[in-house]
């Protein structure tokens, strides 16, 4: 076992840390940086609750080692809301009851942020949104509230309803 020195930018803040090679990115974020908004569920890439963005693309932070993140830019749920006000995706999830226990929500939000960035023009169908969310398990909502929130923000005009 040995420590590796890594330099990462997390939510816009530079940090240099020593990490053991066996530590996953999820554990590094939660334990070393105390960013506990990234939730760990299954730890083998099935549930999606640990989803974060690395250099703008969504990844399972349980399936990436912290050492692999060296030199990368990481975005987590803690960096989403600005100056105390929720980001529009968070607002929409709240409005549509797209969360209950909230365990999966950070992962869902990060996946939806990627979806939004990749589709700035919106116009997505119900099927597009369900496919984008297929990597995030939610045991409370039955997904409808989450899909409704996403449809309101990125959906086709006629499909979106308040």
């Amino acid at each position, binding site marked *: *076992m*040995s420590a*590796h020195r890594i330099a990462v930018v997390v939510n816009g803040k530079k940090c240099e840390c020593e990490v*053991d*090679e*066996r*530590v*996953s990115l999820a*554990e590094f974020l939660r334990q070393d940086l105390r960013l506990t908004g990234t939730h760990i569920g299954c*730890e*083998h*890439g099935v549930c*999606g609750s640990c*989803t974060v963005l690395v250099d703008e*693309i*969504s*990844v*399972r932070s*349980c*399936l*990436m*080692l912290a*050492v*692999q993140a*060296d030199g990368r830019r990481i975005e987590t749920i803690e960096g989403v809301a600005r100056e105390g006000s929720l980001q529009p995706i968070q607002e929409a999830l709240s409005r549509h009851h797209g969360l209950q226990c909230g365990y999966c929500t950070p992962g869902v939000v990060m*996946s939806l942020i*990627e979806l939004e960035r990749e589709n700035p023009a919106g116009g997505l169908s119900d099927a597009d949104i369900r*496919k*984008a969310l*297929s*990597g995030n398990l939610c045991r409370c909502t039955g997904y409808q509230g989450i899909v409704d929130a996403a449809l309101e923000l990125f959906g086709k005009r006629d499909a979106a309803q308040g």
Partner: protein
Amino acid sequence: MKPAPFAYHAPDTLDEALHLMATLDNARVLAGGQSLMPMLNFRVVQPEHLIDLGRIPELAFIEPTPHGLQVGATTTQRTIERSALVRQYCPLLIDALFHVGHQQTRNRGTIGGSLCHLDPSAELPVTACALDPVLTIASQNGRRQISFSDFPAGYLTSTLEPNEILVRIDFAPWPERTGTAFEEFACRPADFAIVSVAAVITMDSGDRISEARIAIGGISAVPMRMTEVETLLLGAHCDSGLIERAAAGAAAFPSVGDDNYPAEYRQELAAHLLQRALTKVIQRIQT
């Protein structure tokens, strides 16, 4: 942390990686990690050394050549599914990737990683079984090339030597009037397939089938070609009767089975999926 202890190496060049592979015992290559990391977390595998290929730029590329399309082994599934070159030269890969995992796993998962992992229910090995690309494999002693058909050795096992790394996959160009399709059945979209079928068909100017490759996953330890069905298709005019006979041929193939999905069920799936795939292929060739 869950994996057993290992030493982590992140070489910047292929040469350096090959040197590490040649000198370290019980070393394992880490590509996208979407299968290997869970296996490490479950301690199903306990390598002493993990050699991360993620920092070797020369292994990630998509390039058209006169001999077809060359894809670097660590090219991510994400890059492949969005590539205009792949859409033009090898659309079957994109059809297959539609079913692979989720965006978050395709963002990291690589084509070479999936081919080397050889999960019998994974889509890319079935696709490779149908397309039979040439694999370039490197070690410190040099390079060798083999067809994908000679690559699988058994369940989750390839013929790679412990000191070798898969570096490139070459997909041959297809003649005019070639159509491809990928069909699978899984309990939920994006879940592991129970059975999957990849079909590559070429028709001559008289609408006879001049080349047929049918690969199937989920009925054996490694993906396989349905050679009897291919023979039946070759030289034939494509009509609904032929597709039905091909489907019956697929259903007659011996299959593995388990408590959840017994052999008879998989055989029935094979027949239906082949029927769908062939119908789609023919439509694609004729339009």
